[in-house]
């Protein structure tokens, strides 16, 4: 490996770094959200599942950030990337920063995201970057399990009582507008696809739609009708929720700069 400094970090490394940050940010923000729901679950088994899923996401964020930091080569580590960037530097999709809401809204968010994320990870297993492919393979096993759990709840709530059906429908209707961004292809995604590094979002969209539709049929839910889609998270333009989330997340590192924990 050649030695390099900040200025010689070549362009494709910068792209790869940014691409890994997106993946890490999605995992971190969703892990943070699930972590906040601990102690509030509808039953004990679900408390365990929520903590367990949060733990998986935090673990994945560490892997993506660790690799990103290594590729960046500026001496930053996973914690610098998680705790010392501002909201406008975060590139997670808007969906993952949406509040937990009631349990149906949590399930709607998890279902939309995880059904996408699993397909993304499966594609990333074939990434030209072997380290990314390894992380994707490991994360994919975890998310496959999450998704099974989440989808079971989607169906139980959708096809449960009148109230649970109403809440589940409201949850998916509310979050539908954030699903478009999952498949938006910007310059960075285009670079990743062309370089054989990243997932082709257009390809996985078709599979995703088919899977969503079939799950909705089983859950007796209507496909949300809204056509307008929100976006911007991947470019650092977020909802107001993210600022509060980061204030909690980053508090100690910001309050005591340079301290070891």
């Amino acid at each position, binding site marked *: 490996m050649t030695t390099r400094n900040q200025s010689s970090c070549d362009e494709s490394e910068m792209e790869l770094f940014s691409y890994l940050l997106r993946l890490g940010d999605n995992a*971190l923000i969703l*892990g*943070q959200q699930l*972590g*906040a729901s*601990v*102690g*509030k*679950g*509808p*039953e*004990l*088994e*679900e*408390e*365990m599942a929520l*903590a*367990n899923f*949060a*733990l998986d996401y*935090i*673990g994945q*964020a*560490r892997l993506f*950030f660790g690799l990103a930091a290594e590729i960046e080569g500026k001496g930053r580590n*996973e*914690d610098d990337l*998680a*705790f010392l960037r501002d909201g406008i530097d975060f590139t997670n999709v808007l969906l993952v920063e949406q509040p937990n809401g*009631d*349990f149906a809204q949590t399930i709607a968010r998890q279902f939309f995201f995880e059904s996408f994320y699993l397909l993304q990870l499966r594609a990333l297993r074939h990434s030209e970057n072997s380290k990314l492919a390894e992380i994707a393979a490991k994360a994919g096993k975890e998310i496959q399990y999450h998704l099974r759990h989440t989808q079971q709840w989607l*169906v*139980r*709530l959708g*096809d*449960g*009582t009148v*109230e*649970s059906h109403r*809440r589940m429908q409201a949850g998916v209707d509310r979050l539908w507008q954030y699903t478009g961004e999952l498949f938006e292809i910007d310059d960075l995604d285009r670079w990743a696809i062309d370089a054989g590094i990243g997932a082709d979002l257009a390809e996985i969209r078709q599979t995703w739609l088919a899977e969503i539709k079939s799950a909705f049929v089983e859950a007796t839910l209507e496909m949300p009708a809204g056509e307008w889609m929100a976006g911007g998270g991947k470019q650092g333009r977020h909802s107001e929720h993210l600022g509060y*989330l980061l204030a*909690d*997340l980053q*508090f*100690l*590192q910001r309050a*005591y700069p340079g*301290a*070891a*924990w």
Partner: protein
Amino acid sequence: MYTQGLDQKSDAVDPQRDDEVRLRQFQARIDQEEKIEAKDWMPDAYRKTLIRQISQHAHSEIVGMLPEGNWITRAPTLRRKAILLAKVQDEAGHGLYLYSAAETLGVSRDELIDQMLTGKAKYSSIFNYPTLTWADIGAIGWLVDGAAIMNQIPLCRCSYGPYARAMVRVCKEESFHQRQGYEIMLTLSRGSDEQIRMAQDALNRWWWPSLMMFGPGDADSKHSAQSMAWKIKRFSNDELRQKFVDVTVPQADYIGLKMPDPDLRKNDETGHYKYGEIDWEEFMQVLAGNGPCNRERLESRQHAHAEGQWVRDAATAYAEKQAARQAAA
């Protein structure tokens, strides 16, 4: 995490119900260190004592998730966040096995949880104290889990088989929790002045409540004899407390923190530390519901339970529909 003092009030044995021959045989089995299993005959009072103790222990695990859960979103590094999440997840798991162990005695989890939510059942008083800084997460692991382990290791040899076996697994995980807590304190004690202050402040606040976890002193502990005879309890409150103090004081010395007890002295003859007077009035107040967080803790659990009602109803309704569909198919 822990059950309050293991100082259960044992129900009076009723010779009308439990004839004397069977009682003698039961005691003989216990004396020979045989395990009592769920389907074995047992005195009604033994059953009730165990249900109360195991369920209080389970409730403590569940309520104990709250003070630590308070810092999940603010953990200072991703590694610390992951460890804390794993710990809180373990606690939910402990709650689950313990409720299952209690269910073997013929009581349902729903009933037990209802007793907790309505304030009829107790949980460990230690969780009625607030977690104010990150150092509190270290102090809870080090002191609260440390005290819990002292109480729980003897429970692995408890005469009731399902409880003893559940405790084997719980103890393994608790000892990991204790180590990670101490490691947080160690790191803070080697950190900046602000971090050292945080660690010392946490020790100051958690030390005495941790000593109270062992329950009243032996002179005031009225319910131990029967539990000892039944081998539910194997050491007295004061014996366990002393063991905890003897182990913990050198750990504090090692990381340069000062115990908040001006009367603490080592007795070179016995090798034990003599500690100052515990404020039992504070203990009684916290037990009576007047600790700093009693209301919040109970309200949090009540709120989660009430908010989850429609979810549980939906799961039941769905399961019924599925069963009906399968029957029709």
